[in-house]
């Protein structure tokens, strides 16, 4: 059993999905989905501990040896992300039962949980696999189920948003497939470890260069790098609230993971940064993304959209970290992937609580909401402070390392811009604070009560995580540093 751990976290939700299809009973399905997710979470913890203790784990699927069969490989880079994905999924599923009551027709609830399980299985699969083609397969599984989840949104615009995402996502996936296909053409292998050995032999060929270019653009579409982010705000805004919480905290991070894995693990540092001016591209687009998206966020009335634009900005930070191309920069990116997952998870769950009571996410309808929902708004406020990067929250930790990385290069202006970006986030967070704390409650909000405990509790779990990992950074900083060192050490 223990030997099969590296696949169990993918297999369990994937098997649970058809089982749910047979069960069909709403509460039963929720319970099975939650149980499966919790099991995945437990397995992820086990895997992380194992990796920390004895180094990377390799698992051969069906007993076929690596370059021929499919290999699953768990190391310091993906183990913490497995934990993030399954953890956020479990917390969000906990809140989902109550939250979707108000947002999705009852007869679709079973389908909702099935799509959720498949989406999670897909994301976990991408992280765990050591096979390039497998990445594409799981990417499609997670994407298709994500399109379904988004389309379940109450507003009819959800269909349009889902369709938009479908088009953008499919183009991205196709580009990725073209990239992988070209790599296979040149090397005859799909195993990542094998690819990384064989690619340098042919790295001067135009085909490999093309493969790389297609791949990068495809992934950047999936991870919503500015200016390829256009699909994201609508998708996040019109999806059911818990889905937004889940996807915002995990999906883009997984895409960033693919980028890191291929860039550093397969193409290799030298190729990745010498064949294309990737460093300056990443820095420019990342910084531009931070400012454009943050400023766009200021002007949103729909809080979901506001946070969605903020997500685009945060992706900018992740990409800037990669663009800095040093150990601390990579570490900052890895750290921020985890930290941003925690903050956006908390924020979107708090928003789910608001939508549950208020029926919508328009800021202009939230006058004085803090007096009616003090715990929800307190959670939102702490999440917002974390987003700004106030000390004692996770956001501060990420920012610290990102700026340190820039200064290690002596790039003072870049460091200044990174910090200036977080001041812009003060504006959009405080815009919310002023409405919910200072405006007098209107007729609408006066009737609102505090959110039910089943949504509030998961929200506060994530809020607590924001504070805990902001104060005790041993685990997060320790692991991401080791991961960054092992990647740079392996060059």
């Amino acid at each position, binding site marked *: 059993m223990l030997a099969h751990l590296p696949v169990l976290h993918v297999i369990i939700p994937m098997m649970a999905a058809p089982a749910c299809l047979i069960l069909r009973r709403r509460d039963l399905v929720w319970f099975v989905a939650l149980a499966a997710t919790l099991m995945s979470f437990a397995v992820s913890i086990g895997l992380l501990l194992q990796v920390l203790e004895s180094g990377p784990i390799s698992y051969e699927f069906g007993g076929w040896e690596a370059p021929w069969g499919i290999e699953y490989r768990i190391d310091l880079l993906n183990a913490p992300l497995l934990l993030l994905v399954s953890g956020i999924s479990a917390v969000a599923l906990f809140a989902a039962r109550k939250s979707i009551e108000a947002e999705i027709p009852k007869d679709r609830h079973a389908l909702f949980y099935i799509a959720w399980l498949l989406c999670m299985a897909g994301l976990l699969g991408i992280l765990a696999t050591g096979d390039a083609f497998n990445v594409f397969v799981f990417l499609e599984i997670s994407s298709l189920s994500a399109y379904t989840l988004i389309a379940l949104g109450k507003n009819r615009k959800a269909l349009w948003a889902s369709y938009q995402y479908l088009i953008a996502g499919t183009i991205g996936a196709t580009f990725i497939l073209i990239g992988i296909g070209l790599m296979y053409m040149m090397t005859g292998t799909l195993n990542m470890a094998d690819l990384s050995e064989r690619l340098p032999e042919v790295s001067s060929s135009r085909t490999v260069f093309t493969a790389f270019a297609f791949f990068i653009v495809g992934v950047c579409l999936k991870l919503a790098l500015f200016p390829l982010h256009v699909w994201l705000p609508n998708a996040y805004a019109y999806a059911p609230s818990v889905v937004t919480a889940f996807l915002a905290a995990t999906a883009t991070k997984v895409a960033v993971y693919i980028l890191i894995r291929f860039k550093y693990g397969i193409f290799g540092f030298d190729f990745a940064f010498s064949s294309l001016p990737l460093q300056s591209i990443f820095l420019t687009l990342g910084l531009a993304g931070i400012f454009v998206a943050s400023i766009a966020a200021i002007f949103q009335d729909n809080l979901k959209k506001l946070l969605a634009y903020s997500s685009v900005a945060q992706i900018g930070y992740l990409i800037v970290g990669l663009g800095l191309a040093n150990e601390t920069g990579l570490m900052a990116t890895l750290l921020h992937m985890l930290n941003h997952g925690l903050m956006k998870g908390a924020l979107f769950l708090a928003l789910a609580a608001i939508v549950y009571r208020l029926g919508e996410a328009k800021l202009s309808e939230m006058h004085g909401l803090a007096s009616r929902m003090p715990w929800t708004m307190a959670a939102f406020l702490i999440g917002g402070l974390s987003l700004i990067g106030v000390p004692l929250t996770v956001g501060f930790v990420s920012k610290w390392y990102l700026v340190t990385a820039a*200064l290690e290069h002596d790039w003072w202006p870049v460091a200044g811009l990174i910090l200036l970006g977080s*001041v812009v986030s003060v504006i959009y967070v405080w815009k919310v604070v002023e409405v919910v704390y200072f405006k007098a409650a209107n007729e609408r909000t006066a009737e609102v009560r505090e959110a039910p405990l089943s949504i509030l509790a998961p929200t506060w779990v994530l809020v607590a995580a924001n504070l805990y990992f902001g104060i005790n950074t041993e685990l997060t900083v320790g692991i991401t540093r080791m991961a960054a060192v092992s990647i740079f050490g392996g060059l």
Partner: protein
Amino acid sequence: MDILFAPTHSLLISMLLPLLAVIGIIVLDRRPNLREAVSIGTSIIVIVLVFNLYRQFKAGVAVELSLFEILPGFAIAFKLEALGMLFALVAAGLWLVTIVYAIGYMRSHHEENQTRFYACFAIAIGSVLGIAYSANLFTLFVFYEVLTLSTYPLVTHAGTAEAKRGGRTYLGILLGTSIVFFLFAIIGTAVIAGSLDFKAGGIFPEGTPTAIPSLLLLLFVFGVGKAAIMPFHRWLPAAMVAPTPVSALLHAVAVVKAGVFTLLKIGVYIFGLDFMSTLATTDILLYLAGASVLIASLIAMRQDNLKKRLAYSTVSQLSYITAGVLLATEAGVIGGAMHIAMHAFGKITLFFCAGAILVALHKTRVSELRGIGWQMPITMLAFLIGTISIIGLPPGGGTWSKWYLLTGALEADHIAIMGVLMISSLLNIAYLMPIPVLAFLPVAKQGEVKPPLHEAPWPSLLALTFTALMSIVLFLYPQPLFELAAAIVN
């Protein structure tokens, strides 16, 4: 009891107790007398603990405490040294006085949300003590931000549109400068010097080229927005929408002094005076501070709103201290450190008086104050004493700090700064002195009845009398204060 008085325990408890008191304050929401008893009780214990620390400190006991590392190499750690001791004494002492004052003020002014008020006040004082005790810049920054956030609800206490606007300016400038400049400078220092610990003589390794530290100094001076150097001073007048006790303790003592305290710490323990005097930006910033002193005084003259006038006066006085640091001489630092205490007692008296006038006679404008001295003799006498101390005339404590600041300027051969200090004293007379003088002008014409005595509630009166007397005491017995200030540079 012994456990409580072990130095590290005293340090930790005096800082955490205000935070714990918040729980009591919130629980006792509906029983105001008990709630205020919690505040008073806590502040008395804190004063006892801080005095115990002072006693130990004078006896030469080293008080150090490292709690935990937030980031590898950057711990939340505390270490008592002279400047921090001085600041802690001032803040803790004046907290009690202010609470006594606030009870009279808040109740007779029928303020709402008093529970939130006392709770945020306690958090603010806890974080001020955290700043005072910090052993490194990292810890200081953490508490600095907590202080900003915990005082925001105090500034916007009234909840009106004006309060919201003021709060926006307050938070925007303080949080903005702290993230863009201060944090930037901190990380820059960490990258270059490899450490953020406060160390006598500075932490930059010998032979560090001066270009980047010059830039860092610039970032520090602008980043510590709480020191209110121009052009980042606007948050302070904006904060005057807060209830008067907040303006008195936080915006004349705790918050603003946290700013100049931070600058002193950075000057003495991060750069070191010798190194700082070689930096290219030191002189530029010094002249900027000088300009700040004069311009703020000129603006103060044009303010008819009493609290606003006092606020601009504070901006001006804070730049005295900033200039004291930037002079990079021992006398400058001593003068700056002493001015933290002297200005605190003087200015808090003035704010207390302004609040008393508001509560008793509902007057906020300088032009309305003619003759009120006959109605509020104690208040206006206290105002006179506060004024004298701020101007720097005997028998006000401010005499001594200004003396050392002038000496510092002379030692550093900055005749222009000496001139600034002199002119500024004249300006102080011009914008502060008319108030008590006006107040004691005869108001009733012959044959008319004099308006009856109408003083503020007794707790408020008690508080302002105490702080006014302290301003005189500090003139007569400046020795303990001087010893602390002198210990900073030795």
